[in-house]
């Protein structure tokens, strides 16, 4: 069973072994509105925590998705390029963005669990 972490940038990280699957939260997709385009990084690219990892374009505006953890991009969700609206339909499931091979698992210490994230969203809305 993988464990799910959340960030203040409204991303979720599901960790299985040393691979983190990253997506945006349901709250984030609600804030974004209708997603019309997703730009994904190259597989093999190394990202540092905080680097731009992907771009989500809604009808309204473009938003960056920052890498919540450092590591190598080992897989991207190509489905999102053809069907960007999946982000609105299943943000915390099939609409994951990238899989990152973690280079420093201690970075996860700075994240929140589901209850912590829920409280964070309530506080900041």
């Amino acid at each position: 069973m993988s464990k799910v972490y959340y960030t203040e940038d409204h991303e979720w990280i599901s960790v299985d072994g040393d691979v983190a699957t990253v997506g945006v939260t349901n709250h984030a997709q609600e804030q974004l509105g209708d997603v019309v385009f997703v730009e994904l990084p190259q597989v093999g690219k190394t990202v540092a925590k905080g680097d731009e990892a992907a771009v989500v374009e809604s009808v309204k505006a473009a938003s960056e998705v920052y890498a919540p953890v450092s590591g190598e991009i080992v897989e991207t969700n190509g489905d999102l390029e053809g069907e960007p609206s999946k982000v609105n339909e299943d943000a915390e499931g099939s609409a994951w963005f990238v899989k990152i091979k973690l280079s420093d698992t201690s970075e996860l210490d700075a994240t929140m669990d589901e209850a912590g994230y829920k409280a964070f969203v309530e506080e900041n809305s």
Partner: protein
Amino acid sequence: MSGQATDGADLRRTPLYDSHVALRARMVPFTGYEMPVQYAGIMAEHVQTRASAGLFDVSHMGQAWLKGPDHATTAAVLETLVPGDILSLAPGRQRYTQLLNERGGILDDLMVSHSAAPEIDGWLYLVVNASRKEEDFAHIRAHLPEGMVLEEKPEWALIALQGPKAEAVLERLAPGVAELSFMSGNLFSCTLNGQAAAIYVSRSGYSGEDGYEISVLGSDAPALWNALLAHSEVEPVGLGARDSLRLEAGLCLYGNDIDETTSPIEAGLIWSISKRRRQEGGFPGAERVQKEIAEGTSRKLVGLKLEGRAPARQGTVIAAKDGTELGIVTSGGFGPSVEGPVAMGYVETASAKPGTQVDLVVRGKSLPAIVEKMPFITPGYKR
């Protein structure tokens, strides 16, 4: 992902604020007002407007009467500030024009209506942009002769009902509006809460669809809003879809596509200047405008259709295929009815011909696009 600050301090509210909150709209600061950016979602609201009818609160816009003794006098005074033909505007007719500066740049764009009522024949009804209203009204006042006044109407709300079903819906509430032709208006009576209320209705809008803009006393606005929403054809539409609708319709947004540096000729608004006014001049910046009509301009506002799926936003560089910079995108986004990204921007005139292939540079990547004739959709205006 970054959040937005929603500091409610010092923001004004329209008479429909409570209605928006009750409809669970997402409210955002816009030109000093707390305005609804979306209700059900921009895409759904956009499609709703094109397919049926959308209801918009545009009460943040500036409404005013320009009052003079008779039409010829009032029109002649306004014509010293705008290139539009106001003198020939028949009673009840409406025209789009621009307030120009001495350099022929655009201070604002506005709608001017000649009163339909003979007893107030010397009155012109003006609707200007929210972001410019203070400056516009001060500018107009500074140029008024003795005996003429500009009377602002902040107590009036402005509601737009846009879409192919707008006529059928509004006709039920205000019989007679179906007879209005595009760009004309009149006073109508409608029953709100069992009482007759006067509304000023014009057949115009900012969506590329048939529809109306309705001026109503702010205290009557919520009742009118609710009465319109009670019709199954109507859904509320926020500023987000208002922007995507007008972009697809090729309509300029002040501050984006036109500003104090752009002339109406560069912006493709020559159609709004009549033959008489082109010849006679007599408006600010006439020298530049007449020269540009005669000799052409060095840049032009064009429509751009992207070949891929990624939108190009305001500020995106427009480049020739060899990499030479041609201009800048002034408005850009996703067109829900076009089902793809669309934009408008200024390019050097040599590259302004429809069919010209260009690149839009987004996040360092060159996205192929084609110069296209606007509007991007087929407008539904009832002429």
